[in-house]
């Protein structure tokens, strides 16, 4: 391993950028959809970009856009988006020991960039290769995702504004969720959680305030936990 201070880009930073590149195939269409859905729901370009920069979490952004577009109450919009992002608490706990030696300010910055992909890549690399500069590798992967996500959102807003409604481009929103859902149902309890959560949400779709979503999610979580207990 050669590291010279004269390099323009540090080797570990470059490794993070390189390793995250194949994942862009999944990120780019996701970001485009976030932009298209935002414009379709009546958000301005500034609001769409603000959402992408300030929240920077795809699935929750799409859910928020969806609910804002159907005039759901703010509490429901916020509650839904935050529940979707709760999984990141697991990532935060899991990656925390690797960042424990860094200054508080550094950790605060690294936390902002935490995503499913940056987490999964970095944890795998830390366990494989102890020589890597942890923050540099993470920054290479996470900041690349950030840049591509922001560009994709803007392109999506511009493209989405020019496409006729008949094409049904916003149908891509449930398709993105579907692509995330399938791998999340990886064993019996998680599959039951998805099946119950989805079914209850369909039946409860007529509830006021878009509460069907939260009711479905709660039933799904409970069903998963019950299945876990009865299986063991």
């Amino acid at each position, binding site marked *: 391993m050669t590291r010279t201070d004269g390099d323009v880009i540090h080797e570990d930073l470059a490794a993070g950028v390189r390793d995250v590149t194949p994942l862009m195939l999944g990120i780019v269409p996701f970001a485009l959809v976030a932009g298209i859905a935002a414009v379709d729901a009546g958000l301005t370009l500034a609001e769409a970009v603000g959402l992408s920069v300030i929240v920077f979490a795809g699935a929750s952004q799409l859910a928020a856009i969806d609910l804002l577009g159907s005039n759901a109450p703010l509490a429901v919009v916020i509650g839904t988006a*935050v*529940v979707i992002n709760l999984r990141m608490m697991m990532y935060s706990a899991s990656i925390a020991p690797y960042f424990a030696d860094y200054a508080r300010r550094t950790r605060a910055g690294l936390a902002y960039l935490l995503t499913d992909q940056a987490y999964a890549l970095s944890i795998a690399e830390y366990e494989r290769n102890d020589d890597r500069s942890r923050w540099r590798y993470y920054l290479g992967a996470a900041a690349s995702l950030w840049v591509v996500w922001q560009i994709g959102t803007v392109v999506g807003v511009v493209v989405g504004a020019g496409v006729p409604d008949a094409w049904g481009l916003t149908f891509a929103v449930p398709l993105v969720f579907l692509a995330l859902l399938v791998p999340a149902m990886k064993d019996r309890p*998680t599959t039951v959680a998805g099946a119950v959560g989805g079914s209850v949400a369909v039946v409860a779709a007529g509830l006021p305030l878009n509460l069907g979503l939260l009711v479905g999610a709660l039933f799904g979580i409970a069903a998963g936990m019950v299945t876990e207990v009865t299986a063991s």
Partner: protein
Amino acid sequence: MTGGLGAVVSDPRVWAAILVIGTLTYGIRLSFIHLFGRIDEVPARVRRPLRYVPPAVLAALVLPDLVTVGPSVAATLLDERLLAGVVAGAVAWRTENVFATIAAGMGALWLLRFVVLA
């Protein structure tokens, strides 16, 4: 369906949602990265339900967009969005690829909407 690039006036409701969701999401991301040293790991009482959040929430988001309970079983099942969703679901299961899933689902929707059911 208003707004888009032409919309000039921002909705304060939207910015309120963005700021609150952003702040809470950042808090979630920072939580244990900040706390580590004081707490070693997520308590089991928190960890157990968290495991079921992704499948339950994602399914509750997806299914109502694909399934509308119609006046008859046939009307419910022969919906273009449900049929396209089934195709996309099969592709998601085989490939676990977001791009392939979107392409298959949109392709199936357009085929049904503009060719088969037109």
